[in-house]
């Protein structure tokens, strides 16, 4: 027996099917949590934000009209919930070890070489990502963590497609610089037309 698709689950949930909602939330929780984790920069805030996101999804169910993909809608809701959570605390995301001084822009600044393995250093990546402005960090997270395409990101963030493209390009560039791995200039404009 095939699994019902997202749209079928949403439809059932809108009609009051609790089990369908449970299945939908479980299907997407890990990815929502990942988005929240990358936007907030730490586990505790991510857990709170992911929970708020699921609650927001439930509250938004009656208004979902199927014009966008369910996953796009859910990630948009998750993104907004996460940003609300950060705004509520009136601060930018702070990676746990940035706060404790482990992340040091000077020591891993532009021009320095770092091993590729270091990119998998969670603390380093968290710190670098957290240091990006929201307008760059969020599109990069939605593209590289949520795996949304540019059109979906444009829809999720209510910004033009061209803006999404430029922000992702600039976000990636800034991320590379913060990780001390400046990109080859020849790659700076290799985004698809």
């Amino acid at each position, binding site marked *: 027996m095939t699994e019902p698709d997202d749209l079928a689950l949403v439809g059932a949930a809108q009609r009051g099917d609790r089990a369908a909602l449970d299945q939908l939330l*479980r299907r997407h929780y890990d990815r929502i949590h990942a988005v929240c984790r*990358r936007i907030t920069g730490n586990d505790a805030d991510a857990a709170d934000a992911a929970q708020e996101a699921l609650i927001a*999804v439930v509250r938004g169910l009656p208004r979902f009209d199927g014009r966008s993909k369910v996953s796009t809608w859910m990630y948009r809701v998750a993104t907004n919930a996460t940003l609300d959570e950060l705004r509520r605390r009136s601060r930018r995301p702070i990676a746990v070890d940035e706060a404790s001084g482990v992340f040091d822009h000077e020591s891993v600044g532009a021009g320095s070489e770092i091993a590729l393995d270091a990119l998998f250093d969670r603390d380093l990546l968290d710190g670098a990502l957290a240091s990006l402005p929201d307008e760059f960090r969020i599109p990069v997270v939605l593209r590289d963590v949520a795996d949304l395409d540019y059109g979906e990101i444009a829809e999720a963030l209510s910004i033009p497609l061209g803006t999404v493209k430029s922000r992702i390009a600039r976000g990636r560039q800034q*991320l590379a610089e913060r990780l001390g791995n400046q990109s080859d200039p020849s790659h700076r404009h290799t985004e698809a037309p």
Partner: protein
Amino acid sequence: MNDPTRDPALENEPLPPHHQVVRAALSEVGRAPDGHREQAIAAALAVFDAHHGVPSLDVARAARAARLRRWNLALGAAAAVVALGVVGTNLLRSAGGSDQESASMMTVASEAADAGAAMAPADSIIEGDQKATSESIGQLEGLTSTVASTETTSATAATGETLPAIIGPAFVTPAMSTPDDLLTLPDVLPADPALPAIETEFACDILDGDVVIGRITYGGTEAVAVRTVDGGVIAFDLQCTVLAEVKP
């Protein structure tokens, strides 16, 4: 589904070589902790139930649990800083002590800090300014054990959004045994001058508008009763686990 903004060419965007590695690292967040997943889903389903007329206390509980996590972190860090400060103060005051003793104290403090100490009554630690070095060591060891017990406590146990202190004379501590008993509590328990003074930091998580009634015993367990904004009463044990919750 037709999406007019979708451009298939963008799906095959050539990534800068280094970003392929970064992208892989970004997506390596890992599976969310099961406890967080279950709690979040339970909270969402509780909202769903509420919209469909099914009464549930899970929303409030989930909200509390979420706040607990935040305050665990914040107060844990604060308690660790306080503990280190006490050790530093006592080190200065006991300058005649041996290096070995000092190193031992620092180790204890470090363990407390590393463990993310939470729920330690800060006032009682600050009192260490007036006490001997050995007492400070004892306090820090106690702090460490508090941390250990905190880590094993359920998701509903931790420190609070607001931190009203119960300081001063001891209160009458009525014995309660059922949730309905909690509804018989007065707004505030009277102090009992016959009892020795106590100093207890109430650090459980309560919501805006919740009011601490006072110390009680619930089912033979020492507890703190809190009246919620909707007139209900929650009994927390001293580790902040919810022992009972009743609505009017």
